[in-house]
């Protein structure tokens, strides 16, 4: 058990309920605990693995996803979950986000989306709303906020959901489904940051979130649903494509190449390609 005071988050941080949810999801997963690996980047959210009893690779800012891809490719037998913040997964790691989805691997991407760079003290993240000001942007955010859910759907993710740290039971079922889904799954989790985000607070979200009963009919409907933000924010599984097949992977670990492979190599022709 991790003592609450060992946790480096601010009191009241939205990451606490998410951690609780994750702890109980992992405990109840039909997978032995030692077969689950979390990867994470750097940020407040990315500290998550330290506060769970789990294998983890806490890597670099923005790089939770390629680590997860490498682990999954190497070890299809492991349940692989990438955990990070919005800055990490969509900002610094944006290229990995779009291309990891394209790889059709059975991994789960979870984001604590607090619409801010928490650990570095409150700068705009890719999901920060328009006109929000902070110490690096005294004029107010000029950029179009990135919608992670729409982006994931557009890139072809077969399971795309939104959760809210203030709805623990709901979040738990969404995360559980995401992990059990056979294919790339995203859960973007609305996570109030009590220290730096004075706009998108628990109250702000509570007034807006509502649960969708079932995923949208098709991608275009899902995109419409995903776009809703200012007054009503749908949470739940917004898109799910059960017909999508994830990539077949072979077992590598514990195997070894044979002499034939080496001989094949010796006979391989040189190629006209560097």
């Amino acid at each position, binding site marked *: 058990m991790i003592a609450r005071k060992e946790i480096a988050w601010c009191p009241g941080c939205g990451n606490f309920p998410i951690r609780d949810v994750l702890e109980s999801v992992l405990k109840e997963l039909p997978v032995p605990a030692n077969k689950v690996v979390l990867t994470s980047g750097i940020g407040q959210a990315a500290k998550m693995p*330290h506060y769970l009893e789990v*294998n*983890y690779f806490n890597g670099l800012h923005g790089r939770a996803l390629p680590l997860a891809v490498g682990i999954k490719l190497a*070890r299809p037998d*492991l349940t692989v979950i990438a955990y990070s913040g919005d800055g990490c997964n969509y900002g610094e790691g944006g290229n990995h986000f779009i291309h990891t989805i394209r790889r059709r691997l059975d991994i789960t991407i979870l984001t604590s989306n607090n619409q801010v760079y928490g650990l570095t003290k409150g700068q705009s993240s890719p999901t920060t709303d328009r006109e929000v000001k902070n110490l690096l942007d005294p004029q107010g955010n000029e950029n179009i906020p990135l919608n992670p859910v729409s982006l994931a759907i557009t890139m072809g993710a077969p399971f795309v959901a939104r959760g809210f740290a203030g709805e623990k039971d709901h979040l738990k079922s969404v995360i559980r489904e995401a992990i059990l889904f056979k294919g790339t799954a995203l859960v973007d989790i609305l996570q109030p940051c009590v220290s730096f985000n004075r706009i998108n607070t628990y109250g702000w979200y509570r007034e807006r979130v509502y649960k969708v009963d079932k995923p949208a009919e098709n991608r275009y409907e899902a995109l419409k649903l995903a776009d809703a933000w200012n007054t009503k924010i749908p949470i739940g599984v917004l898109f799910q494509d059960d017909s999508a097949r994830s990539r077949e992977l072979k077992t590598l670990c514990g195997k070894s190449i044979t002499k034939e492979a080496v001989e094949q*190599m010796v006979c391989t022709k*040189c190629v006209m390609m*560097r």
Partner: protein
Amino acid sequence: MEWSVLVGGEAGQGMFSVELELSELLSKLHYHFFATKNYMSRIRGGHNFHMVRIAEDPVHALSGEPWNMVIALDSETEQYHKTDLSASGVFLSPGQVKEMEQVARERFGGVTATNTMLVGLILAAIGCPQDKFSGIAGIASNPDHLSAGFEFARRWGLAGRCPIEPKAPTHCKFDGNQALALGALLGGCQFMAGYPMTPATSIMHYISTVALDHPVHFEQAEDEISAVNMALGASYAGLRSLVATSGGGFALMQEGISLAGMTETPLIVIVAQRPGPATGLPTRTEQGDLNFVLHAGHGEFPRAIYAPGSLHEAMILARKSFHVADGCQTPIFILTDQYLADSVQMMVEEIPSEIIRREYGSFDSSYSRYRLTASGLSPLACPGAGDALVRVDSDEHDEEGKITEDLSLRTRMVEKRMKKSDFLKKETVMPTFTGDPVSDVIVINWGSNKLIVEEAVRRIAGGGVRTGALHFSQVYPLTQDMVKPFNLKGKRIISVENNATGQFAGLLKRELGISVDHQILKYNGECFTVKELSQILRKYLS
């Protein structure tokens, strides 16, 4: 006895195929040869040329002597290279090639047959008996096309112009990248991630070809940042892992390298150098990234850098690097260049038959990834193998892999990581010396220059000054023990490098206090030739 041929033309005209097919056949026929190329960063057009040196003794460099034969597929080749023909040399003009193309079209229904015909013509010139082919299994070339080439050789009086005996004891030929890929597989490599970049791409090709039906995986990443992080993920998960790239791609891997250092995750990084800065000359050669690799990644952690000087060293060191990376739990680098990557040579040395593998102990739940030990090394485990949880962290961490800000623990962790370099000392790859054992002058070199320097030193032997060559295939760490046997004190030291600033000479100074008396540097994107180098050396020696 030797015969050097240059085949030149526009990219896409087929010279590349001629070189490939010729080297394929030469090796099958047990000829000693050395082949390399000079090509532009474009797919069609421009001016490329391919050089093949065929000999009765092993050859591993461009001689730099006038060509015995120049085959000009276009007028530019005639213009640039005809003047470099030896007095008795054979020139095949674009007109003659056209003639052959004409026959190819008529007889074989297409101009591409010309490539094989040219191969036949060259083989005829070195006196290869035409009936030899029937006896060799798996010769892919079309025998009719080859015969047509022999015919032309006879018609133009070239057949048997310079008879060369096939004296190679083996039929093994590789290019540098292939030797590296083979070495990696022998080292137990099962995972590679990469993003195409000249001159490293074919390493990925060789691995992905093997991956088709063996327990090996190659993943093409969206960028080099992803590639290095994927490889670290795979290494953490249990597989010996590899990335390969060139300077610009390696620039993007820097943070990942530092991550490997901090998390103590074994990783092999091949950097195939090309001339920089930035995009530079993508298809040419240089040794300009030694310092860049030596200091890659922020912060401090141990590393080793190998710079193979031959195909055999490439294979052996690639294999060994996996052992060392696992043993030292740190990133290990292999520094090559376009010249080595793109040169095809016979390899007479034996290929190790044993594949070395990573071994894991078995651990219970008390396992700590970063246990403090006297050697600095903590036992490596992989997730899911036992009750052990494997926790690795890019922040400073405690023994369990949990983030820490305990500053005295920080000090111990820094010392733990640095202590691991003791392991590297045990694994030192000694430099190799050739030439006069009681030399007055020592020509120091590293990486792909080895066999060029050795031949140049052989060539100037007996010229009055006793000269030896000392080649470093481990360029870092450098220790006094590595140079002690060669007794450099009081000798004149000349260094040879393919860069503009003498990076290795600087490193020798910093690490071993050795001062170089003269530096021979070349940085136009081409390798040294034996002739060029021996001439410069002679100047310094007289």
